[in-house]
């Protein structure tokens, strides 16, 4: 799951990394944005239920919709 600042919001971390990459000579770099990456292992009977849980916790805790967006992918680790 990735949580990133909304496009309209200034991303100081991204700018700092971008400038540093450029000054290290990576002129090909156009733009950098920095966000959070979360790996959540959870037990759920099926994909739907897992998706519901993840959506729910993303909104309630893992991101603040005022300034952040989130996206995620589900991956099956093992069946119970």
């Amino acid at each position, binding site marked *: 799951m990735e949580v990133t600042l*909304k496009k309209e919001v200034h991303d100081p971390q991204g700018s*700092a990394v971008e400038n540093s990459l450029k000054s290290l000579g990576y002129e090909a770099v156009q733009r950098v944005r920095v966000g959070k990456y979360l790996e959540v292992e959870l037990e759920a009977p099926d994909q739907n239920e897992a998706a519901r849980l993840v959506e729910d916790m993303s909104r309630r805790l893992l991101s603040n919709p005022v300034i952040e967006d989130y996206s995620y992918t589900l991956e099956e680790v093992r069946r119970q």
Partner: protein
Amino acid sequence: MPDQEEIRRKLGLSDSEYELIKEHLRREPNVTELNMYSVMWSEHCSYKHSRSSLELFPTSGPRVVQGPGENAGVVDIGDGFAAVFKIESHNHPSAIEPYQGAATGVGGILRDIFTMGARPVAFLNSLRFGELNSAACRYLFDGVVAGIGGYGNCVGVPTVAGEIYFEPCYERNPLVNAMCVGVMPLERLVLGKAGGKGNLVVLAGSKTGRDGIGGVTFASEELSSDSEKDRPAVQVGDPFLGKLLIEATLEAVENGLVTGVQDLGGAGLTCALTETASRAGSGIEVELDRVPLREAEMPAAEILVSESQERMLFIVEPEKLEPLQEVFKHWELDLAVLGRVTEGREVVVRQGGEIVAAVPAESIAGGAPCYYPQSREPAYYKELAAFEPLTLPPPKDYNRVLLELLGSFDLASKEWVWRRYDHMVRTSTVQGPGGDAAVIRVRETGRALAMSVDGNGRYCYLDPYRGGMLAVCEATRNLSCCGAEPVGITDCLNFGNPEKPEVFWQFEEAVKGMAAACEALNVPVVGGNVSFYNEVDKEAIYPTPVVGAVGLLECPEQQGKVAFKDEGDLVLLLGGNELSLGGSQLLKSACGKVAGRPAAVDLELEKRVQDLSRRLVREKLVESAHDLSEGGLAVALAECCLQGNLGAVVDLPVSDRREDLVLFGEGPSRIVVSVKPEKLAETAALAKAGGVDLFELGTAGGGILKINSSSKPLISLTLDEMKQAFEGVFKWIME
């Protein structure tokens, strides 16, 4: 194109305001101009509901170099140096994004200080939240504390003092008031003036983006439950850039490269351009195409009202541009020349070669209407004031009560908070958080500044006039306990919707009380901030004026401290007799009640007590000094014991008052000091000469705090028992 009337309504401009704009312009405004007027005439920028009341404050004095009206107040502190300070609220943004809301609040007040040419030397803050048993309040509390630290720690300015209270009325409308203090040589003072025809108007710092558009209009409306949708109005702070801007700006000022400086805060470029022009009585012409943008294609109105953080405006003589660019390059910052100062009095804005706005600077910066809102005593007032706390039975177990008060979130040690702030960076903090006031040495002059921030919303709710007075008295008394002479205050007035007569009554009364106290104590108000519309779903917060006071200490070694020092030192109580349990911490913590009236203030006495306290501390007659505030005498004694890691045995002064009133009653003009036995006579003589009553309470020593009344034991607690109650409550509930 939407019709003008709809736009006008969206922007919150009333019909009469619209008419006034037409009068100023002598024509219809276009949409860009409407936006500019609307942000500048918002409550936040124009003070249209508060201006008339604020005139009550005394704002001048022999030390005042710059009173209200500039970015921050400036006070002479001797040897050619000045202290510069200001407090400001960031309540609404913090309610929806606590970390960034608080961080950008700190960043904003920081810019106000170095904009004047001063080196920022300390941060303070005053915070209010709902009760911590709610997870939502804990989230806000934790986020705000992290945000304050996040910004302050990074820019290398110590956060040295503050206050935090928890009341249900702040649950969804927390208060985040940030204060910053700076120091500079007097001759370095620069003002936010765009003078000198032909001078360049230069923008520095962050690129301009869409975040924070409409921030002030947003900040001037009541929060409703769905204001969470007002998203982009919260911005992300960039303390790294903030730090670079401090260094670059101060270097530019030091080398005389700029003639005017203004930071960009509420109302963004619009405010900076019109205020600087209006202060200088000149005009400005700028090209918006030269503003570095974060997003392509922003319409003129958006560029003009964007509140993107970390931006500064400079007025520069053309021949100084090159050296200025050198300085900024050195700090890896870009400059953009937007235009020039002109002779007229108009701010003219061009985009793509066309004039998109042309407004008389004064009309927009100072031309907002001034309202005299209706005022009416609220229905609750007489009823609550009539309540007499002494009709309740006294508590049975005073030990338990004292532990409960020490362990209440309002009074408990805030170390959990301030250990998350770097309060030592700059190696000038000679008294950090935990005392009555913080003390920062000024190496350049060998003196020191003491500072404190205080306010009690409960008192103000029950009696705004007394509450306002009490806030000024407590803030200055805290300085006097450190031995410092108060030289100026800055205030942040947090209230509900002023268009409600009951709210405006609270506001007016509080301001009157504050003004009276300032007059009597001879302390000028050199700046401040008003935050109205602190309401959620029509429920207003307690009226909460917060006073930030700054004092001068001749020498840092002289400072007074709270802690009891040595076995055998005598413990004395100086000052007032006026006590009340109305609005007290005892009533709140033990009975869950907010009622009654706070104690009346005798301002003459308050002045005598403070004068005496300073004298005793400076002449080293006392070993410790601590002012009495919430929780009264018992709590103050416990604090002296805990800080000194030393017990005390005391006897209450003989009186026919109820014991709970004497132990926990709250009232102004009172200080606990400790003295060496051989200094007692001299101390008593000074007190007598100063017209201040002195009671001998007892002796410091041992590991127990014993409080007796006519030899009957009322309280007996070990240091460990008190420590356990006083420390650790925040860790327990937050972690």
